[in-house]
């Protein structure tokens, strides 16, 4: 059996980070969580993560910057933004920068799971 896909979760809010991790786990996927964008970048290597779920407002490097950095590194890993900030400009910017989805907290599990699954399918198709 091939290794289950690995989902990265970046959120500085501990409760939310753990909640997202648990949701990923109940889907029988592997989750690695990070409290900051920098911590994720330090662990980042091509082909290690299949999908990234990130908050936008983070201490230090923000989610949009992380998105740009990953893009500059040549990453095509799908990025799902989950944020408590309802700001149409941020949404537009994130989507223009290639975010796979932009979801506002509190997020519906069905919606998030749907996006995770289609992100993984898309990633598979690319390989």
């Amino acid at each position, binding site marked *: 059996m091939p290794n289950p896909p690995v989902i990265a979760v970046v959120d500085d809010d501990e*409760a939310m980070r753990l*909640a997202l991790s*648990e949701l990923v786990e*109940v889907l029988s996927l592997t989750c690695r969580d990070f409290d900051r964008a920098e911590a994720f970048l330090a662990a980042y290597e091509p082909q290690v993560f299949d999908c990234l779920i990130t908050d936008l407002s983070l201490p230090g490097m923000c989610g949009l910057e992380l998105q740009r950095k990953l893009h500059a590194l040549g990453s095509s890993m799908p990025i799902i933004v989950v944020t*408590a900030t309802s700001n149409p400009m941020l949404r537009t910017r994130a989507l223009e920068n290639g975010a796979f989805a932009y979801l506002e907290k509190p997020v519906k*599990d069905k919606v998030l799971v749907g996006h995770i699954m289609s992100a993984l399918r898309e990633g598979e198709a690319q390989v």
Partner: protein
Amino acid sequence: MSKTRLHESELPMRSRERSVHKGHGNGSSFTGRERKDKGAEFAALAASRMQPGDDPVHSLLYHRALGELATLIAHEIRQPLSAIVTNGETSLRWMSRDDLNAEKVRNLTSRMVASARRANDIVQRILDMAADDAPRHIPVDLSDVVEEALLLVRHDLESEGIELSLLIARPSPEVLGDRIQLQQVVVNLLSNSIQAIAQVRCAKRQVSVSVEAQPETSAVTVAVRDSGPGIPDSLRDCVFQSFFTTKAGGMGVGLALCESIVVAHGGTIAASNHCEGGALFSVSLPALSDEVCAGRSAVPSAGA
């Protein structure tokens, strides 16, 4: 401009609003620049403690800071609520699986409880913060309070083309109260009147404010009357209830706040319609000294 900077320079002295931002461990939800900016604006409000002055920049800052504060609180509370939603939904997913994992469900449930407590802690800190600004009860001349409040809404009156009629005799009897809170009451009543007039296209656009001694009840009354549509009879009993509003985008806290401040000062607040039209709000507070009050009838009747 210089005024704005002055408030910022006072920030270190007033850092209690920081406690609102403290999350759990690294689970703090407001981040970096954004957090500081919002904190700064609210601190500007707290630091100045709403000494009005006649600076329009300050007035604008105050109104903006209130809006920013509401956004900040909403954001802060939404974090634990989101965690509760996701943990709850994950629990449901576990429970519908064949390999139900009771340990998982137990963990998720205790995290939901922890997050709910955290949301409650945030609410409690906000309440504590409000209580920190403990009212300072000193002798206050309500005429001064009214005039200071008018400075804060002057621009709104002007931009709506509303004529102001002021009936004040000085010196008026003093009451024992917190100047800032009483100012807040008058500002809220005035804002309410301005909005009532702004809602309709009426020819007569007028707000009348009076401060009047009531020797027979040893009270001082501030009355705010507007030329707006008045209060529908069916709503007369609701106007002071929290979250009651007829305004699009209104929060329904203004008049409820007025009532709680007035009651805390041992006074009464009443809403009615004036016989010549428009709403009439009157606030009565116990006069500080009976002799002072009895010796003087401050103004000719303002038509209450």
